[in-house]
């Protein structure tokens, strides 16, 4: 086993974002010099973090990277990661786990937007809340998350699982608006409430354990299952997706 602890140093301009896609377990094998970007300045990893390495291994599965301190502005941690573990003790910035291909990311605080964007495999567990576009795609791209699992213990923001194509997202709290928009595969499960779920979905399964507000008029009710109403849609686009809802908001202003 090897444990790498990165502790954020105090910064002169604490609001500057840091781009740190090089923080993936594999990169800590050996003693390669690593760089991050703070705003438009390239910095050595050691200039931004106190780095402590314990143990020595030569395979990423056995590496645990721990991020400590004020990491809410650190972006792209775990991008393209394929194995090993990243544990974030506090909050994490945008695009954590982009294109992830394997391994685990655990976030004890909140995650900012685009958590697990275009992820292919592996798992992300966020104990706090996730921002907008969790498990989504990139602008203009037709596929979001394609595989793996994202679990959010708190709430998720808007456009959760936009273009979800495969894999599973499970939010224990509520989600914002347009959860599961353009979904084309995979499973999106929200235990709490949502607004305008599964808009324009074409495939996949979306399960809402709470109340669906502002439900779209273009879903066809096809039956009930496990105490949930089952819909198919979105018929606005010939969609063949499945949407299951515990409770559709009555007298919605929009219906």
């Amino acid at each position, binding site marked *: 086993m090897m444990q790498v602890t990165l502790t954020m140093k105090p910064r002169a301009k604490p609001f500057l974002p840091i781009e740190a896609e090089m923080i993936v377990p594999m990169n800590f094998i050996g003693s390669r010099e690593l760089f991050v970007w703070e705003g438009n300045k390239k910095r050595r990893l050691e200039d931004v973090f106190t780095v402590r390495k314990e143990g020595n291994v030569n395979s990423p599965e056995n590496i645990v990277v721990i991020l400590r301190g004020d990491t809410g502005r650190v972006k792209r941690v775990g991008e393209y990661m394929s194995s090993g573990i990243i544990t974030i003790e506090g909050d994490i910035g945008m695009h954590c786990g982009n294109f992830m291909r394997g391994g685990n990311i655990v976030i004890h605080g909140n995650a900012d937007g685009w958590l697990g964007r275009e992820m292919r495999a592996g798992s992300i567990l966020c104990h706090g809340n996730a921002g907008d576009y969790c498990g989504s795609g*990139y*602008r*203009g*791209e*037709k596929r979001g998350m394609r595989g793996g699992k994202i679990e959010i213990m708190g709430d998720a923001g808007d456009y959760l699982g936009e273009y979800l194509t495969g894999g599973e997202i499970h939010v224990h709290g509520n989600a914002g608006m347009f959860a599961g928009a353009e979904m084309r595969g995979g499973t999106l499960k929200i235990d709490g409430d949502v607004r305008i779920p599964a808009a324009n979905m074409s495939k996949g399964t979306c399960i809402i354990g709470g109340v669906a507000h502002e439900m779209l008029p273009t879903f066809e009710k096809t039956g009930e299952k496990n105490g949930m109403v089952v819909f198919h849609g979105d018929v606005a686009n010939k969609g063949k997706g499945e949407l299951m809802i515990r409770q559709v908001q009555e007298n919605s202003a929009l219906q």
Partner: protein
Amino acid sequence: MHEILIKNAFVIDPIQGIHGDIMDISVRDGRIVDKVSGTCEVIDAGGNLTLPGGIDSHTHVCGTKVNFGRYMSPEDMRAGRTPRRGAMYHTSGYTVPTTYGNSYRYSKMGYTTLLEGAMAPMEARHTHEEFAATPMQDMLANTLFDGNWNLFEAVGDKDIRQAAAVIGWTLSAVRGFGVKLTNPGGTEAWGFGDDLSSIDETVPNWDITPRDIIDTSIKACEFLHLPHSVHLHCNNLGMPGNYRTTLQTLDIPSDLNPDRQTLYLTHVQFHSYGGSTWGDISSEAEKVASSVNTKPQVVIDMGQVMFGRTMTMTADGPMEFRLYTLHHNKWSNHDVELETGSGVIPVYYSRKSPVNSIMWAIGLELALLVKNPWQCMLTTDNPNGAPFVKYPEIIGLLMSNLYREKELDQVHKLTTDRTSLGTIDRELSFEDIAVMTRAGQAKALGIIDQGKGHLKEGALADIAIYPVKPDQTDPSLQYEEVIGAFQQTLYTLKDGFVVNRDGEVIRGIPNRTFWVNANLPDDMDVMKSPRFVEKFSRYYSVDLENYMVQDDYVERGIEMNTHVA
């Protein structure tokens, strides 16, 4: 005074009839000269292939629809990103790169002249603005007339002189170069959501047919003595069975010009389909090529398809809509009032698809079956068939039967039955390739006298030196080396300066825009026709005074003065 001596160059210059001699080339102040002083900069070409700068006679790199391809595709921009370095700005994009991306990549491949295939007159400023941001090549703009109401009226009146007046005025007004017809009449029909399916079908609301538009435009072009002929994108692009339309179109022009073709047919691959549905589509490249072989008055370009993702973009609005209904991907359309249309959609050409594989084969068949390389230019209709960075692979396919056979094994098996590619063993030579990538273009575009496409004394010193020694290379077997060589020059010179060295742009030189001033006599000046002016102000949404492109947009313009018969 700036001089360069290129020594030991293996020169192929088809226009001069140099078929591969080791020689020296002298350059002074941007031009090829007889001799330079002993103290000048010397480049040792080391026996490597040395050609005039490449010319693309049909590409889409600047203007409204190209930029819309970029605008709607941030996902594509994630590829091909390079930061600013040295003399280069940053670049982004793969299928529709930024202007600098296009320009640097073409330069790396030895290209110094590009013809933008489609400029809507009303949006000409946009094209010219992007020309200014495509610094490594001289630019020309084919100007769209396929749905031009003023031209339609002249065609309806069978008045060639009036048609010439409209074309001449428009080219001068928008700083255009040649006449482009894209699905003539069809783009007008698309104004109400229709298309035309034959060259003899009447254009809705107009008593004319595509045949009339093509025929009149050809005659008007010759009447004006334009450097380039009518540049035609035939009707029915991409439709199974469309080869009939193409053959009928090929029969339209008689040989009217001793210096060049009378009709240029672009991306003929997309127009050589047999069958009647996507299910039974087949190649009719043999018939089309045979027709071209009997018609010295015709030049075509391939419009080769290569596998992978790309973006289709054309003034052919109805065709793009049909494509959209097949692909269900994003679709953009942009009709231009009184003039033309356009559409953009991304596509993916797959080896697994029988249709895509057949398309791929047809382009190659055309290039191999047209006997005279001066009649078939190498293009992908960039980026419609593939991004232009695929040209070297196409060169490899044309030069090596072995490579073709290998590739044919990889594509859908129906390709062997539905095309003749597997039965052709012709292998093109370096000289054929030199014709199909620069000399032929210079002749077809009528810009030999502008010093393009050759290395005669007085020519522009646009030169590409490729890292391959033709006398020691067998392209048939060493196709990979050939491909590598055409992907990146050792040196690209433009205007007598080394602008690209081993793939890096090392300096920029202000580029030029070639445009035609038709010098119409007073009695042909449409601006003096009250009817023209009145109609313009009624139906266009800009004032005539704000339509004409100001000199500011062609500060680096080369005005090509022509005079009517």
